[in-house]
């Protein structure tokens, strides 16, 4: 396969096929030949873009222009004007908004919005994830070749350490250091695990990487395996992600066919093989020791630590567990060097971060931007402002590891250290942005409902603390709360943090802490005045608990 100057994608979902997508595709092929462009421009059909009423669509890269609905009769003109002469055919061009599917969001970014900085999502939406050749031509497996030929395992780890990469699963632990621990652990057998059990509410960045660029994860896991001395790996993908599981399965098969997975890779002593383990629906399995228990065939209940997985993980062997987004950074770091990586983002948190933008804003979806951007910038630039002229009230940064962030913190740079200084957490990168119609009691109730359902139940502070917090919040939302409830919520939040066995319980209390710190007056209004200022809570006067 060779490089092309432009790429065309034709939608091939069911609606597009019913409306003649295949004919459009064939006409395009013929027209490219007519203009002598067939060597310069590649063309593929992709089944996961659609826009109701505008099918079939064609997308032209790198311009990211979308045309639809396109008939075979439109094709000659589009090819001549846009691809031959370089002029966009505005009469057939449509807006990227309301498009659904993998490519949709990505295409909307170019040209219309300030540039993102894409490392993790470099290939997503631009290559066919089911073709290994397309990955290879985009610098794929180059980093693997480089370390196997030119670098020792320790040099690989040093590169990672120098890059300053920190884990993107939520905790922000330095990745190179984790690798060093596993490399230094005693053991004849070691494992590498990719944590793709993405279940933080509002987060779907890992899904997009798995669906759009699965080979990047395979390559990164092999680099990690070489560095720490492992020869076997697992990708633990949450069971609900059917497409991601199937694409990763195909990618592994193709890598095996190409001799990239297996024995004596690239003629070296390094061997590595990879398996997929599909989750069965449990948020807690994103916690690394619970994930390991689950692979072993047990309930996903976190283990007490120490020992950490780096010394005694899967089947008690030293095990490296890294998040999808963390891994997706690694091939680029190896290719371009640690200094390049450190030049992006902030001093303490180099690199980019992928955010999912959700809630009451004009544009929701996925962006990848350098660490250190502020919430205000995300809302005004990428999300195109609050929906229906609403005003920004708070942002929830996603799942157990996140925080409720008030408007007063919207100019804090979003990186691990600045957020931690401000007493909040970046979490998984979900940014649920809410307007003044959102009630903090109601939001905290929804979050605690999530935690009480997802607590594995093994330790008391988490199992009982989350249930009791939910009950108190329910009472407050029904207008039967007391001022003592506020003290109890604070106490429960502290106890969850201090006494829980794992990260789920330790962070489950943070919504309580956050609403009491930033929105106490609103909570008190429910109790003292029996009024929900946002008009959301039922305030029925009935006591359920």
């Amino acid at each position, binding site marked *: 396969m060779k490089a092309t100057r432009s790429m065309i994608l034709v939608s091939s979902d069911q609606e597009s096929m019913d409306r003649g997508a295949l004919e459009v595709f064939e006409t395009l092929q013929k027209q490219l030949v007519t203009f002598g462009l067939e060597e310069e421009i590649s063309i593929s059909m992709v089944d996961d873009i659609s826009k109701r009423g505008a099918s079939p669509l064609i997308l032209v890269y790198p311009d990211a222009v979308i045309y639809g609905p396109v008939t075979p009769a439109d094709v000659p003109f589009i090819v001549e004007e846009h691809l031959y002469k370089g002029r966009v055919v505005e009469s057939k061009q449509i807006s990227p908004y309301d498009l659904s599917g993998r490519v949709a969001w990505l295409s909307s970014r170019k040209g219309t919005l300030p540039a993102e900085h894409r490392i993790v999502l470099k290939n997503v939406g631009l290559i066919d994830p089911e073709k290994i050749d397309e990955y290879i031509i985009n610098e794929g497996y180059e980093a693997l070749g480089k370390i196997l030929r030119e670098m020792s395992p320790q040099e690989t780890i040093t590169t990672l350490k120098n890059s300053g990469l920190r884990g993107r699963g939520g905790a922000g632990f330095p990745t190179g250091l984790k690798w060093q621990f596993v490399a230094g652990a005693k053991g004849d057998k070691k494992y590498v695990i990719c944590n793709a059990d993405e279940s933080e509410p*509002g987060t779907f960045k890992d899904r997009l990487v798995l669906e759009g660029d699965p080979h990047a994860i395979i390559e990164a896991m092999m680099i990690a395996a070489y560095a720490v001395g492992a020869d076997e790996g697992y990708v633990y993908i949450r069971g609900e992600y059917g497409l991601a599981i199937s694409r990763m399965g195909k990618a592994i098969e193709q890598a095996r066919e190409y001799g990239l997975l297996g024995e004596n890779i690239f003629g070296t002593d390094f061997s590595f093989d990879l398996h997929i383990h599909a989750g*069965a629906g449990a948020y807690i399995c994103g916690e690394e020791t619970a994930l390991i228990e689950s692979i072993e065939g047990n309930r996903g209940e976190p283990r007490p630590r120490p020992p950490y997985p780096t010394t005694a993980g899967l089947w008690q062997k030293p095990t490296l567990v890294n998040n999808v987004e963390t891994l997706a950074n690694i091939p680029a770091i190896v290719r371009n060097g640690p200094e390049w990586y450190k030049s992006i983002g902030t001093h303490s948190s180099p690199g980019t971060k992928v955010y999912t933008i959700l809630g009451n804003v004009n544009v929701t979806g996925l962006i990848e931007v350098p660490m250190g951007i502020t919430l205000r910038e995300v809302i005004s630039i990428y999300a195109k402002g609050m929906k229906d002229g609403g005003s920004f009230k708070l942002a929830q940064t996603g799942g157990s590891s996140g925080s409720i962030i008030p408007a007063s913190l919207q100019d804090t740079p979003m990186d691990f250290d600045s957020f931690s200084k401000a007493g909040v957490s970046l979490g998984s990168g979900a940014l649920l942005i809410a307007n003044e119609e959102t009630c903090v009691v109601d939001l905290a109730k929804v979050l605690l409902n999530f935690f009480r359902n997802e607590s594995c139940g093994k330790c008391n502070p988490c199992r009982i603390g989350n249930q009791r917090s939910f009950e108190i919040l329910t009472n407050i939302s029904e207008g039967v709360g007391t001022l003592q409830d506020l003290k109890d919520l604070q106490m429960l939040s502290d106890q969850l943090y201090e006494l829980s066995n794992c990260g789920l319980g330790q962070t489950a209390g943070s919504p309580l802490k956050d609403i009491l710190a930033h929105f106490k007056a609103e909570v008190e209004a429910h109790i003292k005045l029996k009024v929900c200022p946002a008009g959301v809570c039922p305030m029925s006067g009935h006591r359920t608990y």
Partner: protein
Amino acid sequence: MTVEVKEGQDIQKVVQLLIEHHGHEKSELIPILQEINSKFGYISDDAITEISERMNIPSSHIYSVATFYRMLSTERHGQHVIQFCESAPCHVAGGRMVWERLQKELGLKKGETSEDEKWTLLTTSCLGVCGVGPVMVIDNDIYGNVTPEQVPDILSHYS
């Protein structure tokens, strides 16, 4: 399914085929339970007993695993299973109104199965398609940007 199951094949035979395919390692327990669940809609006591004998795993362990994970069920569900996302992003995007309408249309509450065994109504945590919330899943079909008004129409697609 990695193992072809013929119509009417009994659970003992299915378990045997699955174990032949996956092997006897305990790490294969969850993949085997997932396949049984997707074929039969739930994991019956008979299935647990059969797996226990063939894999030499205590049935108490199998039961504890089968009841831990949300995608596995030890109870028989209705013909169609509806899962409604109750996580914060869908909630903020208007999920509460859709949920109320859904309960009203079906006459069911969370966790209930209709008398004619057509519907089971469940809630679920985030499904990772938050860009199009509120989200509900019926069997394997995902519906995004659902409004309360669309609920009767969506339900009418299932006979």
